[in-house]
């Protein structure tokens, strides 16, 4: 998956978790600013783990705190794994 596809998936998942419309999920806004609490963060992590078939830690979300940053990180992580 490309960064854009991952980003699109994150936006959809976040809209579902936060119960808001997709156009309100700004990809440059920090997760906590979107109102994501720790339990919701775990839901998002689970969705991503299943979709991308990778193991994540909650720390990844603090280190890459926006959809944009996280998608880039996840695309790189998958690329590295697939190359190995």
């Amino acid at each position: 998956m490309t960064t854009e596809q991952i980003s699109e998936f994150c936006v959809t998942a976040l809209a579902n978790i936060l119960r808001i419309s997709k156009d309100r999920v700004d990809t440059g806004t920090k997760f906590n600013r979107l109102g994501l609490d720790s339990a919701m963060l775990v839901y998002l992590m689970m969705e991503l783990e299943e979709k991308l078939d990778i193991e994540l830690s909650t720390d990844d979300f603090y280190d890459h705190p926006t959809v944009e940053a996280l998608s880039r990180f996840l695309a790189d992580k998958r690329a590295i794994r697939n190359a190995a």
Partner: protein
Amino acid sequence: MDTLRSLVAHLARRAAERADDRAYVFVSDRGTEEASLTFRQLHDAASALAARLTAAARPGDRAILVFPPGLEFLVAFFGCLMAGIIAVPMMLPRRNSARDASAAILANCTPVLALTSSAFALRADLQARFAQENIRWIEVDLATDGATVDLPEPAPENTAFLQYTSGSTSEPKGVMVSHANLLANLEMIRLALGNTRQSTYVNWVPLYHDMGLILNALQALYVGATCVLMAPNAFMQRPLGWLRAISHYRAEVACGPNFGFDLCVSRYRADQMDGVDLSSLKIALNGAEPVHADTIARFATTFAPYGFDPRAMYPAYGMAEATLLISGGRRGGGHVTRRVGRAALQAHAAEAPADAHDAQIVVGCGRALSGECIAIVDPETHIRLQANHVGEIWVSGRNVARAYWRNDAATRDDLNAGIAGEDGAWLRTGDLGFLDQDGELFVTGRIKDLIIIRGINHYPQDIERTVQSLDAALRENCGAAFAAPDEGEEALVVVQEIERTARNTIDSEEVKGRIREAVADGHELSARHIVLIRPGSLPKTTSGKIQRKLARKLWLDGGFDEIG
């Protein structure tokens, strides 16, 4: 059960008699065993730690326990009990969160030690957070070797630990649970749940939460059963893993808050339940937040095909001030529901509903435990009320704590209240409910505007203060935070007045973003609905107190005009 005077003595006896039986097992989210402790190993590890603790602190000193999920917490807890050091279980501060309840708790209990696991001691943000406090860090692991010292057995009236679950951020209340309180409630729980040493537990509730610690981890040890622990996050991610572990370990007892049972149903997937057999489960205890009849019904229907016995559903009621459990049913006895009228309930009477629209199902939380009394009392006059009258739930018994740590006013008012015309000291729970003619307790609401989401108590004034400190445009003492049902779950709503001068210039979306961020960081909550309103439109009493219940009703009815 017997005459041992402390939980330390219970552990010593288990270690002597059943040395190699497993006390605790920690499993990963995939169900693999990551660590385990036999009774002997737990006893030896805790004894070795107790020796280290006595060299670093004096009996009666406080030690905070800050642990990631695992078994180290239990070594630390028992090490403190043995050394006579008062354990203070604390929630892990969230990374990047500047403010939460921990600062106020530290200021209240003035700990000299902080106990954590070796891996965790490295977390830089934790070190920074506690650096300014004069606290010595002690790393705890599961090693069973190390020098031991002879220590006196704790006296029954001594404080075993402080449980901070109540009180607002500005005024935290640490319940002083004595060894006598703890043993009294553990025995009450044993009788109510019908536990034996075959009563294997599977628990995901965090150990800093009183339900995880006392009802699950300590009760299992008290009866000599094995307690299988999993990380709270693992449960949140894969709730069915809890059920698979119950099946795998043939567990008899599983306890959690209402939302956990909902989560199992909403995440149910047949392909993840292959081979799961829940017929061993005798007690599925639902407590720590309001128990919903439809949650019970959905869970029973969904999991009956996997051998779940609906009679195992065990709604219960409790709080830290009563050590933990206050009321519960009988093993295998099933639970009681009752149809009552909404209107009558609001007028403080439990009566049959006037019509279908007026009907509400309330779930019985069992009866008073052995040796304990529950009274329903008028919160204003302190007069005892008769059956089927709604009033404040008051409790007396050997499980009720005698004091809050360094808080004389709350100790007097809430733990040593008196019923008009009667002798004796009572705990005021702050919850509303009624007893039926058989003594079954029904909890119907709260006197205080406490917000309970996912089993955690939040004080609205703390959230309102967080919001109002963000911007001068957000009027002080003119906001209301409350929980309201939203798409099948409790969601946080924040209603906040905007200063007249800022009404036309404010960027509402930007302000809402900052509110969401601050509430998530400071309170671990998502503010799902934020409503900014004109000054003067929030309902208040004549003395200027915010009427949160009325604000909640107005919001549910769509009665607020939003700015912007």
